[in-house]
């Protein structure tokens, strides 16, 4: 026999047990370990998981409530980890029973908007159907809306999106992502979208110290290492790089590391050509001069 609501509320629920059962902590810990900084984001992710857990407990006790709307908007500069967090978010949402699969379908304007009349609606619906049961991640969502062209098909895609976001709340979680200012213009032009998104999460830029930490983690993951000198050089590199145009946080660091690896390989090759034997530790070390050759340091002499 099903226990009645009253009997159950007398029993109460063990939130800790529920948490352990959902195995959300694993993902949260992974998030903490993998991502440097981003304290406000992690805080919000924790809040959301706590909220979903409580919603689940309420459901178990028979307290009626509507399916919470879990649509989100990630704003922040490029390379601040929006896509990475979206993937983790899908994991968390799936473990908490908010969605059925932890899959993320990542799309941009081109995947949603058609090229001629009558092309957009089927295209958008196709994408929505593919994403159902999981997370739909729309990168650079503000491109959907082009105010300069009033006959732009983006508007049509937005309308269908809104309709499905509202009607199929329990089947689909939509995450919009993009630069903060442009997202704000997008929202002011489409207040309907803004009001249907419950969670707005802002991704702050990384500090120079955090970027250095990121560089270390990335290098470690690629099985490279810094010595004291190259670490100091990396620090100087980061400080310069931040001020340069097109700085995109962690992505810039990744690119810098990739280029440093390239130069390191070239340097080792030249040493070998000069008749030196390459030692094992040399293969994993990123030398200061690999970084100093970067464009960022050019013009130092002047």
């Amino acid at each position, binding site marked *: 026999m099903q226990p009645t609501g009253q009997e159950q509320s007398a029993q109460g629920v063990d939130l800790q047990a529920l948490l352990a059962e959902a195995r959300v902590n694993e993902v949260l810990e992974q998030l903490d370990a993998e991502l440097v900084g981003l304290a406000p984001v992690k805080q919000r992710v924790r809040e959301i998981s706590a909220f979903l857990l409580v919603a689940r407990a309420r459901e178990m006790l028979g307290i009626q409530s509507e399916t919470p709307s879990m649509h989100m908007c990630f704003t922040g500069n490029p390379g601040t980890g929006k896509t990475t967090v979206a993937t983790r978010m899908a994991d968390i949402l799936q473990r908490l029973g908010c969605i059925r*699969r932890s*899959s993320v379908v990542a799309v941009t304007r081109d995947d949603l908007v058609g090229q001629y009349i009558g092309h957009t609606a089927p295209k958008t619906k196709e994408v*929505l*159907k*593919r994403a*159902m*049961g999981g997370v739909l991640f729309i990168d650079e969502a503000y491109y959907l809306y082009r105010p300069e062209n009033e006959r732009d098909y983006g508007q049509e895609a937005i309308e269908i999106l809104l309709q*499905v976001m509202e009607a*199929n709340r329990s*089947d689909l979680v939509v995450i919009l992502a993009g630069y903060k200012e442009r997202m704000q213009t997008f929202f002011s032009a489409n207040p309907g979208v803004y009001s249907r998104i419950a969670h707005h999460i802002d991704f702050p830029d990384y500090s120079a110290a955090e970027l250095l930490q990121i560089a270390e983690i990335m290098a470690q993951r690629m099985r490279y290492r810094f010595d004291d000198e190259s670490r100091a050089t990396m620090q100087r590199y980061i400080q310069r790089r931040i001020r340069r145009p097109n700085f995109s946080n962690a992505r810039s660091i990744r690119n810098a590391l990739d280029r440093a690896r390239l130069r390191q390989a070239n340097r080792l090759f030249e040493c070998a050509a000069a008749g030196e034997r390459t030692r094992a530790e040399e293969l994993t070390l990123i030398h200061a001069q690999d970084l100093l050759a970067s464009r960022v340091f050019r013009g130092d002499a002047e």
Partner: protein
Amino acid sequence: MRITQGAFSFLPDLSDEQIRAQIDYALRQGWALAVEFTEDPHPRNTYWEMWGMPMFDVQDAAAVLYEVNACRRAYPGRYIRLNAFDATRGFETVRLSFIVQRPEQEPHFELTRSEGPGRRVRYSMRTIGAGRG
């Protein structure tokens, strides 16, 4: 007359929950679902109208149900069925097909007799009352 075509047609109509479970099963088998509708359920009317393309890259029952409901809204008084197509080599055919909507008043069939050359009698079946719903 209650039309009995496809799977489950001798059972009471499936609820949406049951339909979802069947879709889930089909998706787990890796079959692609397609929605079709018709006015005329004549047994020889094999190819019903297609409601959109077969959904080859859909992974969740909600998406299929979404299309079923869209079709129901557009054609409230017609037969709607779901086909699950198995693309594996050797099958390449519909593995499961069942009706998900019928009109309130279903048509019936009439047997007609006609005389051909040499007094040969030919029988044929005709749908009566299709498209009234």
